[in-house]
């Protein structure tokens, strides 16, 4: 059970052009900002949007191939979709909603109903079987949508921002439920989200999509440690600079006076430099000691986040430092104030761009 797809489609200004592969039983999160083309990916896989070029192969069966005109309509693809706003059918009861896929595929009324009821039972929704979707809470509606998409046992399940329609309070709970329910389904799953928390809780691997192209993919841990775009860096809350590593191992950041020494000197050439905000230390005076990078800079902005204070520093080094409120009080930091920023060489993560 694998999915292999090359998706090329132009929608307005956006050109989506990406490769996507999902291994058997794998959960992949498609992460990206609004307008990156995430939903477009789902629509092409589901057959709701035709490709301009490329192909989609599910378990060796071509669902679409622009080269030879192969095309399987959505109703004959084994692809279940959980839509962002669920799109439950308002005139049908919950159990009729869940049985819909089976009925549409020719299962008899009684058997479809029995199977839908069993699934609702498993999802803890048996009590709601006879109700209309309008009587459900957001979390319940989401589970019904998931049950409906899984009832006909698709080989690929697509989830579009499954938690976006929920308020922050229920999101955590529903995310946990969703994790358990998804674990009970052994097909391939592709989850679209803009929230790394969802990706972390639900996915084995993330694919980061920006402006229609894949900028990065891998495990969330790897992506977090080695962001390759400002979007990913912002998403995971780390400092990302681009530069060039010289033969001496010193990295000069493009368009800035910042120079870095990394403990693990990278190969000469273009590199990304990631520095976690907590690794940026602030002092009133110049420091000496272990191999480090230091700059005399200025505070441009202070931002309190619970028990952390995020300090934005002027260029150079143009980074964000994260310190404790205690440290802030000790340094008596204020916007516009000069300060020494230091980063240990061992805290500098440099990798080829």
């Amino acid at each position, binding site marked *: 059970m694998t999915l292999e797809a090359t998706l090329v489609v132009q929608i307005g200004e956006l050109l989506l052009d990406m490769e996507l592969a999902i291994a058997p039983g794998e959960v992949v999160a498609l992460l990206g900002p609004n307008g990156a083309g995430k939903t477009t990916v789902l629509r092409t896989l589901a057959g709701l949007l035709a490709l301009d070029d490329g192909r989609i192969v599910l378990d060796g069966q071509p669902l679409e191939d622009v080269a030879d005109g192969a095309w399987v309509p959505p109703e004959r693809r084994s692809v279940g*979709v959980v839509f962002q706003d669920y799109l439950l059918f308002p005139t049908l009861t919950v159990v009729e909603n869940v049985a819909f896929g089976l009925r549409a595929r020719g299962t008899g009324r009684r058997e479809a109903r029995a199977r839908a009821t069993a699934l609702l039972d498993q999802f803890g929704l048996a009590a709601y079987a006879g109700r209309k979707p309008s009587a459900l809470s957001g979390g319940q509606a989401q589970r019904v949508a998931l049950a409906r998409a899984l009832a006909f046992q698709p080989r690929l399940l697509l989830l579009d921002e499954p938690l976006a329609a929920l308020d922050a309070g229920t999101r955590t709970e529903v995310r946990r439920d969703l994790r358990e329910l998804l674990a009970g389904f052994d097909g391939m799953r592709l989850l679209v989200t803009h929230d790394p928390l969802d990706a972390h809780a639900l996915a084995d691997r993330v694919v980061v999509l920006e402006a229609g192209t894949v900028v990065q993919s891998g495990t969330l841990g790897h992506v977090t440690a080695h962001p390759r775009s400002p979007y990913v860096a912002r998403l995971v809350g780390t400092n990302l600079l681009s530069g060039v590593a010289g033969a001496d191992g010193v990295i000069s950041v493009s368009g800035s006076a910042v120079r870095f020494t990394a403990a693990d000197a990278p190969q000469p050439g273009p590199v990304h430099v990631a520095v976690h905000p907590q690794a940026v230390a602030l002092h009133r005076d110049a420091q000496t000691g272990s191999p480090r990078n230091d700059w005399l800079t200025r505070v441009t902005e202070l931002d309190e986040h619970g028990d952390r204070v995020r300090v934005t520093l002027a260029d150079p080094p143009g980074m964000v430092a994260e310190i404790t409120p205690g440290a802030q009080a000790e340094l008596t930091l204020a916007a516009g104030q000069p300060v020494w920023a230091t980063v240990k060489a061992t805290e500098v993560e440099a990798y080829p761009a």
Partner: protein
Amino acid sequence: MLGLVLATVAVAFFTLPLVGLLVRTPWSSAWRLLTDETTLQAVRLSLICSLWATGLSVVFGVPLAWVLARVPFPGRNVVRSLCTLSMVLPPVVGGVALFAALGRRGLLGHYLFDWFGIRLPFSMAGVVVAQTFVAMPFLVITLEAALRQLGERHEEAARTLGAGSWYAFRRVTLPMARPALIAGAVLSWARALGEFGATITFAGNFPGRTQTLPLATYLALERDPSEAIVLSLVLIGVSFVVLLAMRDRWLDAAVGRRV
């Protein structure tokens, strides 16, 4: 203030004729006129024909509205205009056109007659045809607007679940558009019930066969105005009841969708 005055004038404009009818009604002879055999025949014929016309409008109009709202094809706007032209056409012209197409020597009519012996003009079926011709567009337009407004997303969801587009429409979208379907059917029925021009042109005016209530009313006006007034009251009463019933159903359906 001016708005209020104009609105009052408008209300008066619509109520005054009704009051006039009520005032001029010969109540003493009303019952005798109502139970007159010709009147009863006309009422019966009107109900049967208008219900047939409504049924046919639904059977053909629903798929037509679906095609116009969902199936993109070149010339769709032209087809839509053609199919709703009879709404703005003078009904008499519609009747003449039907004659040209379905009359005994008409485009299709002479085949119907030669091959099957079917003669639509001056028959009860002719009344139904004339009424359907002018009534169906009301259903098509109402339903198509509702389908466009509902959008295709629920149908898309149904298709990912394995439903073909017509199955998805029938089981998902059409039930969602039920208020519009009912409203459209009622409008069509009201239009069919009141049909005059196309009916008298295409089907003639034979008591018991093609003489519907509006036709009987018009004829009565020349013979005995008080009878025409009583018949008018019957038509108004029926229409008013339908309008009231529709409001309730409409509201119910709308509320049902929101809950």
